[in-house]
C-alpha cells in the first residue's frame, strides 16, 4: 500500500463544517441504523409482523350487527359445558365459608387434636395392658397401705370392707 498525502487533506469548507459540529452528538438511532445496515436484510418471523400490525392498528369497533351474524356459527361450533346455574355471589359466599372452614380445621381448637390425644392414650393403655396381668381381689385382700390410701379418697369405712 502506498501513502498518498494529498488524499488525507480535507477541503477548507469541509474542515470548517466539521469544526462547527463540535458540540453536536449523533442521534441514538444512528448507531442502530449502522448496526442494521451491517446485518443486511433479515426476514422477521410471521407472528412478529402480526403483533406489530395489531399494535399499529389500534382499537376499532366491529361494524354494527356483526356479532349477531356470527353468533349462530359460534354456538354451532362450541361445546356446551355448563352443568348447572350457580350465581356468582353464592359461589363467592361458599368460597368464604370454605376458607373459614379450612381455617377452623387447622386451628388448635379443632376436634382432630383431641382425637389425637385420645388415640395416643388408647395406645398407651393397650401397651400397659400388654405388660401386666390385672387380677381383681376382694377389698379386704389389699395391703394395709393400699387400704389406707383408698380410705383417704373415700373408700368404705364398713367393717370387712377396708382394713
Amino acid at each position, binding site marked *: 500500500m502506498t501513502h498518498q498525502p494529498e488524499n488525507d487533506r480535507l477541503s477548507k469548507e469541509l474542515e470548517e463544517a466539521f469544526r462547527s459540529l463540535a458540540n453536536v452528538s449523533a442521534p441514538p438511532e444512528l448507531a442502530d441504523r449502522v448496526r442494521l445496515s451491517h446485518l443486511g436484510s433479515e426476514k422477521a418471523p410471521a407472528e412478529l409482523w402480526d403483533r406489530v400490525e395489531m399494535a399499529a392498528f389500534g382499537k376499532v369497533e366491529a361494524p354494527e350487527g356483526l356479532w349477531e351474524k356470527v353468533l349462530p356459527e359460534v354456538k354451532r361450533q362450541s361445546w356446551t359445558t355448563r352443568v348447572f346455574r350457580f350465581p356468582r*355471589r*353464592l359461589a*363467592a*359466599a*361458599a368460597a*368464604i*365459608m370454605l376458607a373459614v372452614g379450612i381455617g377452623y380445621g387447622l386451628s388448635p*381448637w379443632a*376436634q382432630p387434636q*383431641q382425637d389425637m*390425644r*385420645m388415640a395416643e*392414650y388408647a395406645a*398407651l*393403655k393397650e*401397651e*400397659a*395392658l400388654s*405388660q*401386666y*396381668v*390385672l*387380677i*381383681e*381381689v*376382694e*377389698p379386704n*385382700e*389389699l*395391703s*394395709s*397401705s*393400699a*387400704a*389406707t*390410701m*383408698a*380410705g*383417704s*379418697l*373415700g*373408700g*368404705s*369405712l*364398713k*367393717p370387712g*370392707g*377396708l382394713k
Partner: protein
Amino acid sequence: MRPEISRLWTSTLVLLGLTAITSCRPDSLSYSSDTSTAPGSGMVAVDEMPMVNGISSLPIRMEWEFTSTEADGSEEHLFETFHADGTGNIALDLTLTGDGVSAPIAPTPDIDLLHHNRQIYLALYRNLSVTDPLLAEANYIWFETLGTQTIAGQPCTEFYLDSHFGVGDAKLWIDQNTGLILAWTLYDPADVEIQNLQATLVDYQPNLSGVTWAVPQVPSQPYDPKTSNRTLGFKPHRQVYGGPGFDSEVQTMLITQSQFPGVKNMHLNMLTDGLRTVFVAQQRPPEWALQPKGFRMGTVSFARVGGVSVLEGLVAGNWVFCVGSIPADDLLVLANSLRRR
C-alpha cells in the same frame, strides 16, 4: 357499601345460618363434645370457666351427706361436719353413718377413729374441687344448666362435666356468690353414680371456738431426689406420663415408720386432672414380692371400693399403689409410666 358486597355478605350469612341449622343435633350438643355421655336437656356449653374456690379458702361451717356406691349397688352414707378458718386449718367430723335403707346411726368407735385419722385427705382430696382450672377445662367439656338451683339455702348453678378421656363424668353445684362447690356427683364411665356429696347446711359466719383442727397422722416432707432416697430406703421411679389428662404432680415423702413401725416409708405423687385426685405411691418391695430376673409379665392386684379403684403390685422393682376414682385399667397406665431415674 356497594350493593354487590352487601349481597355477598347477605349470602354468606344465609349460608352460615343454614349450616348452623343443619349442624344441630337432637341432643343439643356441639360437635366438639363427647357423644357417649349426653347431658340432660336445658344445658348449654360453657363459654367461660366459672370461678371456683376451695372449701378451705374462707371461714365456714358446713354439714353434708356423702354417699358412696359399691359395685353391687349397696351404699354407705356418711354425715359429716366441716370447719375451716380460711387460713389452712380444717376439721372434718363424722356425726352419723347409714346405708340408705335404715335410719342413720352414730358411728362405732373404730369407724370414728378411722375417719378421724383420714379427715385431712377426705376433705381435701376425696371432695371434688377445681384445683387446676386449665386442666379441668382441657379434660372436661363443661355444660351449664340454665337457671338457679338452691342447695342448703344458697343459690347455685349446676354444671355437667363431660370427661374427654371417658374416665367418668361429674356434676357440680357451685354457689353463685362464693364460688364454693356445695354439691357434686361423680359417675363411672358407664354413667353409674359412684359418689356424691350434698351440703345440708352452710354457715359463712361460723363460730369456730371449740373446733379441734385436724393434724396429719403421718409426718410428710417434700421429696428431693438428691437427699430423700436415704430416708425412704429405696429409689422411687419418676412418672413420665400423666395418664388420662393427669398432671400437676406434688411429690412428698411420707415418714410412716415414725408412727407405724411395720409400714415402710412411702413416696407419694399426687396427680390431678383439674378435678379428681389420684395417688401414685411407691414403697420398697416386700421380700416375697421380688421378681426373678427374666420374668417379663408383671402381675398387679386391683379392687374397687366405694367408687375408688385401688391397684397395687410390683412395677419395675418397686411396690406401687395407684388409687383414684377412675377405672383400674386407667390407673395401670399411670403405673406403667413409672421409669427408673
